[in-house]
């Protein structure tokens, strides 16, 4: 039992919160700009490297200031870069068929990655060096303290998303655009503002998700691409255009990936851990077959 919770369930929840944050951006871009953004994983990686550079620059070595000071700064910088990318590469294609935008994002995925690899090299790096303190509870629960901050930070950001979408004018406009772009335009919503807000939200959350992942594991130029498929799967599972669906989808997929290698039957892992990455894909295929609109009745194109 203790083993199950400490080594499978908790890591699953951590991974799930990270997927959830990343998937919000994917689902909003899919819902509002109407295309699957393949460059989203690389946005995340870029954000992580910006944060890593800030850590080196300031010499800050402890978790709380990294998350409270450096992470917001990295989020701002990532957002600025993504807005520039939108201006240079996506805006000229707004009138093109969506699939052209998908190709453009596929190209940008490799362009951003090559910039990252060119600037920082491909060696693994760490944002948070050294042994981290652990928390022991109730005799059997044991997990690193940083996991508390990751889950807490993710929940806080998700609450912020909820607040923006429910109570602010731009948030309401975003939901309206996602539900019906034609209707939204008729009511006089400024489309370009909504598009910008979508990029701001997506890029900021991608950077945050990346930093959480980097704090939990390592900094790697492929880290964003490796979780791109789970994030897509989370967005589809939750229903395209549905931010709450993406959060739920992310959690489900993160937990499912970790639990898949638990020894449910017999002594060996149920699924060879080498295939963990395949779980997201399998879930995505099942949902596409069974209910293409996802759990939260999103869009199906």
């Amino acid at each position, binding site marked *: 039992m203790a083993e199950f919770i400490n080594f499978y369930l908790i890591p699953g929840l951590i991974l799930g919160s990270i997927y959830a944050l990343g998937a919000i951006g994917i689902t909003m871009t*899919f819902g509002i700009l109407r*295309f*699957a953004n*393949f460059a989203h994983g690389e946005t995340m990686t870029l954000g992580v490297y910006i944060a890593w550079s800030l850590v080196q620059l300031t010499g800050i070595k402890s978790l709380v200031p990294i998350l409270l000071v450096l992470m917001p700064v990295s989020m701002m910088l990532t957002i600025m870069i993504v807005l520039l990318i939108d201006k240079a*590469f996506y805006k*000229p*294609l707004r009138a*093109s068929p*969506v*699939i*052209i935008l*998908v*190709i*453009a994002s*596929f*190209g*940008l995925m*490799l*362009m951003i*990655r*090559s*910039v990252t*690899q*060119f600037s920082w*090299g491909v060696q693994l790096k760490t944002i948070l060096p050294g042994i981290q303190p652990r928390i022991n509870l109730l005799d059997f629960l044991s997990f690193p303290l940083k996991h508390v901050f990751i889950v807490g930070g993710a929940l806080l950001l998700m609450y912020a998303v909820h607040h923006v979408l429910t109570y602010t004018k731009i948030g309401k406009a975003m939901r309206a655009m996602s539900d019906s772009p034609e209707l939204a335009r008729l009511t006089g919503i400024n489309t370009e503002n909504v598009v910008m807000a979508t990029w701001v939200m997506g890029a900021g959350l991608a950077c945050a998700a990346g930093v959480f992942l980097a704090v939990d594991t390592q900094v790697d130029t492929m880290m964003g691409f490796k979780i791109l*498929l789970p994030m*897509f799967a989370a967005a*589809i599972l939750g229903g395209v255009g549905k931010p709450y669906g993406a959060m739920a989808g992310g959690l489900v997929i993160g937990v499912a990936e970790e639990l898949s290698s638990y020894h449910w039957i017999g002594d060996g892992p149920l699924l*060879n851990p*080498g*295939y963990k*990455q*395949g779980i997201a*894909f399998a879930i*995505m*295929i099942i949902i*596409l*077959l069974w209910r*293409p609109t996802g759990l939260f009745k999103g869009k*199906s*194109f």
Partner: protein
Amino acid sequence: MDPVLYGYMLYGISLLTVGGMYAILALGLNVQWGFTGLFNAGIAGFFGIGAYTAAILTTNPHASHVGGLQMPYIVSAITAMLVAGIIAFLVGKVCLKLRSDYLAIATIGIAEIFRLIVNNETWATNGPRGISQIPRPFEGLPEPINQVAFLGVVLLTLAGVYWLMEIARKSPWGRVMTAIRDNETSAKAAGKNVETFRMEGFVIGCMIMALAGALMAHYLKFVNPQTTDPLLATFIVFVMLVIGGSANNKGAILGAFLVWTLWSASEIVAPRLLEAIGMTDAGIRSAYVRIFLIGLLLQIFLQKNPQGLLPETRPSSPGKNGS
């Protein structure tokens, strides 16, 4: 012969051989993207399926992997295409009903799953170490005749695929394909079964990609999970097709040779340029610069010249002008 000249000649042969294989890939993608409007982001996967099938069928028996069946090349090429076709059919069953983005996500997923399988199922594929000693047609002949002969095989295959695709393009079938791409609703209204046509386009395209993969396995005489590197095998084919001219078979071939020549030439030029401006690690870093530039080239074409170098030409309809 002068050794320098001889070296250039061998380089030219290899440029044409690999360029020819990319041209076959681009023709396969053209059926999907050019004519049917389907975005296959997992070209690498179907290419890899072809390469591994050919490797397993034609090698000599070896303890490190399954197969070693010593089959003739033609059998392995056909099997490679069949395997890829079946997998494409299954993917298509799930995704073709939905909008093209879903197909893009699912195909990139298939490519990743395929990489997981070849990496993990060591008993069958020898894992990351890959399968070596794959035979190549005409390898018994003396240098450079064997190289020229293999180039001949590639170019003949390319010509055959081109010929078939041109027939397909001009046929009623090809016309329905472009009609669906341009206006799905009106094609449906005309009584065409959109899903079936899409499925045919997708499966045929994937089979052509697997054929290119089989050729590549024989050419390199070696496959490993890196063979299905998503960058080279997927992305560059898209760049080739967009630059050459999607929905134009000549454009696909032109784009493939052009981009492959640029890509290979930049492999020689880029590191020297970076070294000249005093950059450290010029060799490694130049690879990233090249990828960035080829991505930029794609973006420029998408924005400024989405038709590509050779724009689509529609076959004249038999009803008009009597042609």
